[in-house]
């Protein structure tokens, strides 16, 4: 394993403080995915940061918080361990090769282990942990949760998430100008929008939205000066690369529509992200 770039290594402390942003954050995370040395460095600084966290006075949350939390568990599937990821191969979407000099290394992980069923007994968990140490483990780095979402979805989440779409998603995540934003959805759950003007694509990951049943669907929209254009349906706990071309400055919106979707929104957006 090659030594991480010194300049990037010097950012490990700031990363553990969640104090990186923009291009630096993206470059650091790309390196982090490759470098066990860097991960160890980050882990150490995270322990320090957690010490800072423990300095904050404890504060009991209101009881309603726990009740609300447990009410959401039914709609929140538990993810399998990180070593069951189908996207754990380096992938490069052909379109992203247009800027080979500035393109980042794809997020690489060693050979994926065989997918495993949902979490089992404790000893099995421990065994998995041992195995997982060999693999790119970003679980502790919650800031890359989007990557975890991106790779976990192939396992069992629904949506137009075939291999081609997965490659597009991987290319989006690796795009030099990729940006993302997570917003809460009124009614519950959250959506993350990931976009790259360079690739002209965007993707949406929905997490914990209320199930709509067979009568309605969640529909995505690209909205610009010309108004909203339909960009495809997405499930309550799913993802998709949006239909149509993305242009910087568009708003990505989400509405509830009659099953099958509409040509124009018929309801108020329940989430919107300004790119």
């Amino acid at each position, binding site marked *: 394993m090659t030594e991480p770039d010194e300049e990037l290594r010097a950012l490990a402390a700031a990363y553990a403080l969640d104090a990186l942003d923009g291009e630096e954050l993206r470059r650091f995370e790309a390196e982090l995915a490759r470098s066990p040395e860097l991960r160890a460095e980050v882990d*150490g600084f995270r322990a320090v*940061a957690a010490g800072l966290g423990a300095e904050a006075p404890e504060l009991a949350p209101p009881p309603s918080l726990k009740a609300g939390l447990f009410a959401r568990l039914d709609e929140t599937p538990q993810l399998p361990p990180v070593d069951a990821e189908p996207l754990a191969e380096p992938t490069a979407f052909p379109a992203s090769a247009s800027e080979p000099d500035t393109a980042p290394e794809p997020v690489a992980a060693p050979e994926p282990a065989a997918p495993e069923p949902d979490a089992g007994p404790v000893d099995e968990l421990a065994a998995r942990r041992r195995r997982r140490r060999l693999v790119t483990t970003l679980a502790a780095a919650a800031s890359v949760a989007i990557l975890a979402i991106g790779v976990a979805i192939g396992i069992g989440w629904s949506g137009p998430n075939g291999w081609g779409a997965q490659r597009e998603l991987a290319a989006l995540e690796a795009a030099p100008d990729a940006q993302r934003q997570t917003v809460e959805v009124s009614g519950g759950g959250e959506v993350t929008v990931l976009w790259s003007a360079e690739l002209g694509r965007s993707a949406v990951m929905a997490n914990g939205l209320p199930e709509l049943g067979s009568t309605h669907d969640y529909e995505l929209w690209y909205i610009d000066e010309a108004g909203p254009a339909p960009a495809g349906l997405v499930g309550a706990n799913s993802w998709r690369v949006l239909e149509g071309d993305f242009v910087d400055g568009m708003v990505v919106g989400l509405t509830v529509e009659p099953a099958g979707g509409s040509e124009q929104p018929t309801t108020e957006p329940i989430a919107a992200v300004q790119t």
Partner: protein
Amino acid sequence: MLGRVSDGEGSSGEPSIDVLFARTAGGDRAAFGELYDRTAPRVFGLVRRILVDAAQAEEVTQDVFLEVWQQAARFDASRGAAVAWLLTIAHRRAVDRVRSAQASAERDLRAGIRELATPAEDVEERVELSVEHERVSAALGELSEAQRTALAMAYYEGKSQSEIADALELPLGTVKTRLRDGMIRLRHLLGVTS
């Protein structure tokens, strides 16, 4: 060390936080409930400190525990204590909230699209509040004031390096150095080995 000390292991025969995590990973809601009861005040305390606003802090805290529920099988005890992992998630989510609130405040969403992000607070006001209520540990006391300020702005206010540089009207390189040196010093003082 750090987080482990506060894991509350072994006291009065209660299952350790690690065990509760493992059971949570297996879908055990009772274990998850106990995990919540024992760790929520710590998580909520941190999130509230960063966000100040109680309603936002409650939302983020709930999201943190939902993430724990989702990701419990991915927690790797070999890489740190469970409580430290929790606080890592909590910090990340609180910072994301701070930044998205700021970002949305700077953006003018087009007519017809309802703004759904949580309203941004007055950032300057939050700075003063958190400096006022700052409690620093003995180790923090060993740092230079410049280092301490940079660390506090990063960790407790969720500012990025470049935001700190802007706020303090310092070159970015200076801020980077202060954060890094401060963290290295803390790592040494707290006896963390990586």
